[in-house]
């Protein structure tokens, strides 16, 4: 029996009251809120008010001894150099400045739209070295890989967030064009046949980046006014970031000083 007898009588009385009004039972189930969607799109950069970020990357500590790159396993590589070639990671200039540091606007520029440039970034393999050693590229921008060496290379980026690939390029083979879909700082690139070869690619969402030159300085141009977090990356001592404020048409300075030991 489904219903105890005592309830029958009571039930009959109640029935009258209930007649006609059907009772909907909602079981106790949570209703999750619909998250509001982020508005897409952004503000275009006004070149009239854009400023720049400039600075210098230095290393404060004893100059590291650079390893010599032994290319003797491939005579083609050896022939391209008349003097010993040193590793580029950890290089410090006489005045303590650091070349090949990658400096980019890490935070603060998301509200602007930066279409990926149509011109490609070129990575050359010359003398069994990558030229340039450190480069920046925007998400969706073309990386144009060429070889100036009469030997076979393979280009093997080892990303964490982008798909990994490893492409052979024989002498005289056509250039290889690739794109990266997701921002990632940095993607190391190696050649499995010439294990000393190393490049680093910084894939970023905006064109606000620069690589320090031989003098250890950098300039990031076309920065709309605002507050930013700028990060400097080095292959040997890891990363540092700092906040900068760029005023309309102004120049903000961001200097970075690395110390020994703080490596990644």
């Amino acid at each position: 029996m489904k219903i105890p007898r005592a309830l029958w009588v009571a039930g009959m009385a109640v029935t009258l009251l209930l007649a006609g009004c059907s009772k909907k039972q909602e079981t106790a189930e949570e209703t999750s809120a619909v998250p509001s969607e982020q508005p897409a799109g952004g503000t275009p950069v006004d070149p009239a008010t854009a400023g720049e970020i400039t600075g210098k990357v230095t290393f404060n500590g004893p100059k590291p001894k650079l390893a010599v790159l032994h290319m003797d396993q491939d005579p083609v590589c050896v022939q391209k150099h008349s003097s010993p070639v040193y590793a580029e990671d950890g290089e410090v200039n006489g005045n303590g400045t650091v070349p090949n540091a990658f400096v980019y606007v890490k935070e603060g520029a998301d509200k602007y739209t930066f279409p990926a440039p149509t011109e490609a970034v070129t990575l050359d393999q010359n003398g069994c070295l990558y030229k340039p050693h450190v480069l920046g590229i925007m998400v969706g921008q073309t990386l144009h890989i060429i070889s100036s060496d009469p030997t076979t290379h393979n280009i093997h980026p080892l990303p964490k967030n982008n798909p990994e690939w490893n492409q052979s390029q024989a002498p005289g083979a056509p250039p290889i064009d690739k794109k990266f879909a997701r921002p990632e700082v940095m993607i190391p690139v190696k050649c499995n046949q010439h294990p000393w070869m190393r490049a680093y690619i910084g894939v970023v969402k905006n064109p606000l980046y620069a690589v320090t030159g031989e003098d250890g300085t950098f300039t990031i141009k076309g920065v709309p006014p605002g507050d930013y977090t700028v990060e400097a990356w080095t292959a040997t001592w890891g990363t540092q970031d700092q906040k900068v404020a760029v005023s309309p048409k102004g120049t903000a300075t961001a200097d970075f000083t690395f110390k020994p030991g703080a490596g990644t």
Partner: protein
Amino acid sequence: MPPESPERDPVTSQSLSGLLLISALLLVLTLGWALYDEFYGLRPWKDYQRDFVVRYTAFLRRQKPKQEAAERAIKASPEYQALQQQVDALQKSVEPELRKLDEQSALIDQRLAAITGKYTDAHARVTYMIWEVEHNSGSSKRSWQADLDKFKKGPFRFEAVSLEDGRVRTESVDYDRLESEFKSLQAKKGELLVRKGELLRPVSELKAKLDAYFKEHMTGLTAAQIQGLIDKTQAMDIAIKQINNPDAGIVDRCESCHLGIREPIEITARDMGGRRVFVSHPDPELLKIHDPEKFGCTPCHNGNGMQVDSVKQAHGEYEHWLTPLYHKADPRAKSAGAYMEAGCQQCHTNDMVLAHAPVLTAGKDLFQWRGCVGCHRYQNYDPEPEELTAAQQKLQQLAQQRAEDVANIAKATQAGDNAPDNETARQFYAQANEYRLAVTNIDLQTDQLNTRIKFLQMDRKKVGPDLKEVRAKLRPEWIPVWLKNPHAFRPTTRMPRFRLDEDELPAVAAFIWQSALDVKLPSQPMGDPVKGKASFESRGCQACHAIGEGANAVGGWFGANLTRIGEKVDYDYLVRWIHNPRERSAPYCPFEKRDLTPADYQKHGLPYVFDLDHSKCPNDGHELVVEQMTVMPNLRLSWQESRDIAAYLMTLKQKDPASYPPAPYLNDPQLKAKGEEIVRRYGCAGCHEIAGFEDEGRIGTELTTEGSKPLEQLDFALYIGQAKREGWWSHRGFFEHKLARPEMFDDGMVKAEGEELKMPNFFEPQNGDLTKKWGLQDLPPESREQIAQLTTFLLGSVSSQYPARYFDLPEDQRKDIQDGWWIVKKYNCMGCHQFTLDQDSVLMTLPQYQTPDGKGQLPPRLVTEGARVNPEWLARFLANPALSEKDTDRDGVRSYLKLRMPTFYFSPIEVRKLVRFFQAMSQQPMPYIPQKLEPLTSREIAMARALFTSKGAPCLKCHAVGLPAHDQYATAPNFLLAADRLKPDWVKHWILDPAMIDPGTAMPSGLFRQEGGRWVFNGPTPPVFQGYEGDHADLLMRYLFELTPAEQQQLIRMTGAGMNATAAKAQLRPAVRGRAAGR
């Protein structure tokens, strides 16, 4: 006297109308109520169904425009448009021809229509007349023949269009003409159809391409499909939805309320206004493997499938219903799918890995790893001891049978000798021969069994270390500290804490110490701890062993955490252990039931040598136990490297071992007997080898079907009331509480000494007070997670009511996969290797393998191993990964890796299972019959040589060739291994695009490009390639399979310049270094 008024007749004077009215009213009300109940009260699922129709329709209507927009976007895409234009253009181009064909076809149809009737009538008549001609004779035959001839002359008249000018004419023909006309028309019609098909084929192919493009880019359903769903939903009957498989006892009405479960579109609770009951199944893949029409719902989910009266009853969550619904854990917990996955176990007992059930899979692993299997029997786990016993018994039976047969030979021979006549004698002698043959058969069977026993002995492992070795291995003072609470010394240890009291602990320690073998190991010179650390971190030790505790731990979990190893262990012993962990101090004879000594060998004039090649007892010929029962493999390290690693490990300590309090009682002989009794009581021999306990069985209850044990039989002791009040009066509640604090079921019980519950503590509160009573909630999250995993496993461990065909008991290659996973898990192969791309090995997560160079040092992925290697080669490699009897301090394939494949001393039983596992994982047929490759012509050999030695071909830069000066840079195996090791098909796929097989491999893609249907080398080719029409990848593959050492030498000679330059430059290096230092 007043006139007597007659007594009033109650029947006439009293009215019952009031009562009747009330009754009538009540009756009406009851009817109303009954009707209400019928439509609303008793059928809750009707409300659900009406609600579903409303919400689902609304949801679908919201979806439709989105999908329409998506469709439009795809159709507007340039690729689609281009295809569409191609279709249109092509269609247009064939149109005139098509129209012509259609016109012709119409004409033929008209003409056929006119002729067909005439012809079929005439044909029937002719056929009939021929039959008469055939079945008559004499004059009637002739008469029929005459009639036939006359009929055939016709004339047959019909009006039909002419195919030439399309005009209608009356034609008159004889029968033969009529027939030929009919047949030719039919043939023409067929021909036209074929031509039309050919004309339209490119169009339909292009259309298929267009459809394929659309399908490829369209995610989800099309608008039309959604409209179909809307129509279907609108037309849905309000009725019970039921899956009925009477032969399996499945009657599931769950879908009467869970209406969205099988819908082809993903439905979330949010889509349905928060109504979780209507969501679609979260794992449609699972439904594809388990067709709901066959499996229903309850075999996986439990609950009461027939009930539709209330949610509670349908879910089986009321008293006495034996299979309540399996629940998910808290969705925020790591093991969110917990408990629900228990449902997989009843059919998947043989599977160690279930891709869709990570919690259950973890529980299965834990049952082995935690050592539950040491005390509790569970089908399939640790089967070797039982198989050994069975084999021993069979041996005894055979010995008995043999003795009988031998006696019978003598008897029959004697009877023959004394037989009265030759005939009888011959019969007896024949009988004697039968017995002789039987004896031989028994001997052969005995040999087989002995081999099997040897193999089983090799595969038999113990969860814990061999306690016969403690005198050589351990510092004595450390033993009581460990026994008191292993977790205090090593938080992640799998050794549980036995609740030994003040008296018991010294006794156990003393027994263990005194029962151990008294051996003295050779003293080892001290190694170099710095080199040892480098070896430890590069040889692969960390795939199993971690150093550091908690968040600082670096390395795997499978083996012991070595953070404090230096506090407990003896250096000399550690060196021997690292050099070969399988080495024993003394062999054990299961027949004599004792450890043998050098004297046993001396007696028989034999050297004291015992290993897998010398495994017979010198006294009685029985198979000895010659190996340690550990899964730890032999890394084939040199003695020096073993010393270095041991020296490093000895530095790992948190406190000075000298600070341990002395334990002189270890040598007190009076404690031994008591200790022995306690060791037996707690079943220590379940996990450890202990002298005198070799044949000890498991002390715990079998758990294979523990999940279906009646609740009343689970020992809740004094907690029944509380469990019912607090809602854990269930199997799950019992398992969880028992695992969290096993002794809780002794609380309040009056028990004699030694009668307490024996199950030790596997989980404890962190830094908690162990004298306090703790509960599940006091345990750290990792412990709670492990308990959830084990509980899931136990919940699912039921004796199933479903027929065998519901179980996952394959007999094809899937069985090989099932069997193989047990071995893979047993030896933690996944510590180093990836078997599927979604499973990371332990090594892959270590810091030293994160850098670009480090990644190149990882062991090979085994995702296509079965397709890659020849199974016979694999069997050889697994048995001897050095691929050499003498030169063992190396890896047989990848000599360039610091890591190396260790020797596991798999028995042939396990080797076979592993080989079959790999072949099955890659759907490779067994046995493997190598395909015959076309031999290279002399031109092809010249071409291959030229290509291999040209500057454009990078092969020899990375692949080892056996020259030390070259191989120091090698990052890939020697090609000489290919012919023996690899399968040609795989090699071809590999060289064309290795990233399709092993994403991230050092081997580059793009070595070949397609050109006119063949693959050609993607770079400058030597002149000898001029005019060669063959496939270059195929040529190289065939060359690799023909490569001989002499040919490789030839290649090296030809490369000459490059290789010699390498060697020469190698000499120059110090000079260059010197200059570098000056910079």
